[in-house]
């Protein structure tokens, strides 16, 4: 009888390059091209279509990080280069996302240190990088320019642009050919608006990743799940201003009540389950970059994506 899925989509997701190898002008061991999908997640029929990229989030001042992670990782958290190295060689991530938490100190002004940290991380790992800049509008411009400069040629992903705060990050990205994370609070229309703003100041479609904001499991995920589905749906229906890959980072996962108040014996297990469940469900809804903080979440997501993707297990290697 031949029952087949046919949605009649007309759009497709823009391709974004993350990382650059030597031949591409950078120093990364590997680079990825994500996007390009023409249907819902994991329904692509083509062999070797890419599976979501699993990203380990690290930081340069672990004072701001969950003790669950710092206890698990041990001393390496005091050395971003080592931590990034472990992300690749021990934990098996596809990418590393560095949060410059050092810039959150009151009256932070040591901009040069930002460049040094990024260089350390670049030499610690051959994986493509996401750099999460300052949290403070006053120093944004300097911090982002420094990030851009330090990673010149590496096709990094810079975060995070928001509706009221996107100019300096966009300027840095354009000056040094990096891509930008565009974050809006769980709403398709706001996501679209921000993408249009970015487009108007010259950031091209293939340099934008949408962050629809992930409320973690039990704390807003019900909204984020639909926001991601709606973005993907609009993109496939042909709305080019929403047709960019989606990033998911449920940063509150390790601090929600269920995790924080669990018995010490299962603390790691429940933290990992919380990240895993959120990450997998987000990938099913349409996210293509899944960020986690607990290293043990990585192999679980890897296996699940493997079983959902035809042919290949690792991310869409370029």
């Amino acid at each position, binding site marked *: 009888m031949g*029952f087949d899925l046919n949605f009649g989509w007309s759009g497709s997701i823009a391709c974004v390059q993350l990382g650059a190898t030597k031949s591409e002008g950078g120093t990364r061991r590997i680079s990825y091209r994500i996007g390009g999908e023409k249907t819902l997640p994991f329904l692509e029929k083509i062999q070797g279509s890419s599976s979501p990229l699993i990203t380990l989030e690290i930081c340069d001042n672990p004072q701001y990080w969950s003790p669950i992670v710092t206890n698990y990782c041990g001393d390496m958290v005091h050395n971003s280069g080592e931590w990034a190295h472990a992300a690749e060689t021990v934990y098996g991530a596809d990418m590393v996302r560095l949060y410059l938490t050092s810039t959150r100190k009151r009256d932070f002004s040591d901009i040069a240190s930002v460049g040094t940290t990024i260089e350390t991380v670049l030499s610690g790992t051959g994986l493509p990088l996401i750099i999460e800049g300052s949290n403070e509008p006053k120093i944004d411009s300097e911090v982002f320019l420094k990030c851009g400069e330090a990673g010149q040629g590496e096709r990094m992903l810079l975060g995070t642009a928001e509706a009221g705060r996107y100019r300096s990050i966009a300027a840095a990205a354009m000056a040094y050919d990096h891509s930008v994370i565009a974050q809006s609070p769980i709403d398709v229309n706001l996501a679209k608006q921000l993408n249009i703003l970015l487009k108007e100041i010259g950031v091209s479609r293939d340099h934008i990743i949408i962050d629809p904001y992930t409320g973690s499991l039990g704390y807003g*995920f019900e909204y984020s*799940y639909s926001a991601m589905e709606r973005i993907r749906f609009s993109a496939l229906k042909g709305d080019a201003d929403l047709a960019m890959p989606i990033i998911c980072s449920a940063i509150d996962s390790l601090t929600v009540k269920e995790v924080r108040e669990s018995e010490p014996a299962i603390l790691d297990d429940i933290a990992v389950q919380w990240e895993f469940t959120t990450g*997998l*469900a987000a990938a*099913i809804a349409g996210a293509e970059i899944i960020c986690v903080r607990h290293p043990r979440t990585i192999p679980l997501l890897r296996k699940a994506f493997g079983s959902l993707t035809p042919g290949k297990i690792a991310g869409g290697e370029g």
Partner: protein
Amino acid sequence: MALKALDIYKLLPRKNCKECGDPTCLTFAMKLAGGKADISLCPYLDEEAKSVLGATTRPPIRLVKLGIGEHSFAVGEEFVLYRHEKTFYHPPGIMFRVPDTMPPYEISGVTARVRDEFFTRVGADLRFNGIAIENASGSAEIFARAVGTVEKIADLPLVLVTADPAALSAALALCGTYRPLIHAATPENRTEFCALAKQHDCPLVVKGKTIDELAQLTRDCTSDGVQDLILDLFPASLRDFMIRSTTIRQLAITRAAPDLGYPVLLDASLMELPDAAITLGITKYASVIISAPLSPASAKAALTLRQNIYTDPQKPIQMNPGLYRIGNPGKDAPVLMTVNFSLTFFTLQGYLESTRLPCFMLIVDTEGLSVLTAVAAGKLSETLVNDSIKKFALEDEVSHRILIIPGYASPLSGRIEDLTGWKVLVGPRDAAEIGEFLHEEWKK
């Protein structure tokens, strides 16, 4: 294709006799159009109307009920592929699997766990739903004994997992009146299984490796007189489930393939990655999920995900605004203000209860938005706080005039003081710190 309410109305007797339970034929037609009523409720339909309406107005996915009594649940009657197009109505039942070869005390243990265990989130008790007993021994007698062991402990919905008509018959002799789900009819055993399902009026799973095979089986079973069917896609991988479950849902809701208009079952315990399978099943249209008994961490994550996916994001779960009491607060007890988003309410309430300090919670109407969201959206204002103080007669309840507000609402503190005349104490941002805060700040 689905008919519009007016087209349906034209086919109705237009007597407005109310026997269907609706005030007029037109309102009944509107319900039919939305798949919210059954044509059999109108006794005056002619044959032609019945045949036209029958195929198009029943819900695109049949409602199937498992079990009886307090723990019973219904699945199916879903209408959309994407939750945001409407909502998902019937959360999947998660059933713990026990092989009949398991020692009886262990079977009893798993059963008691499903009966007793719950996990409270946002005011709801989240539970697992039943037991799937598997005829691993191959013996009818042992199977029936295991069913008996489960029955002795609790009246939970059951799934009887066997391919053998003799084993099924022995089990149904014990529990057939409680609407267990029979798993599963295949082309080999269909005739016997349908006869047993009909005899005991039980729902029946059909199992097939391809969508065509499933469609053929449901046609055969319905012509054998069994209507309450569930589909087991018997997937080889997560990807396989993803593709087939999506295909079936799409064909069913568009009524392109009525033979597939039944809920879907996923046996995660047979999958290589059971936790991932459960997440996939919850998000992608499984209505019954069989799983090995879950570890505490997996259990909480699965139940929370199910709650999230089956909460309508267009209607956040809300509390009635008002004055709530923790313990038996006196006139000098502290008053804590917060919003009427139920997640916020229950989070704060939980922490307040553990401080063991009697107090009042003043819940203001932010239309179900959380503190931070309400502040960002301008829904939490000094006027709202002032009106709530008046409306819930707070000034008669306490003798002091001190209001504790959430840390995230601190930008409003001055304006609240000016308008209400109350002194405002800005509490911590994180409700977990409320106990410490009260002990330090309130006692002064």
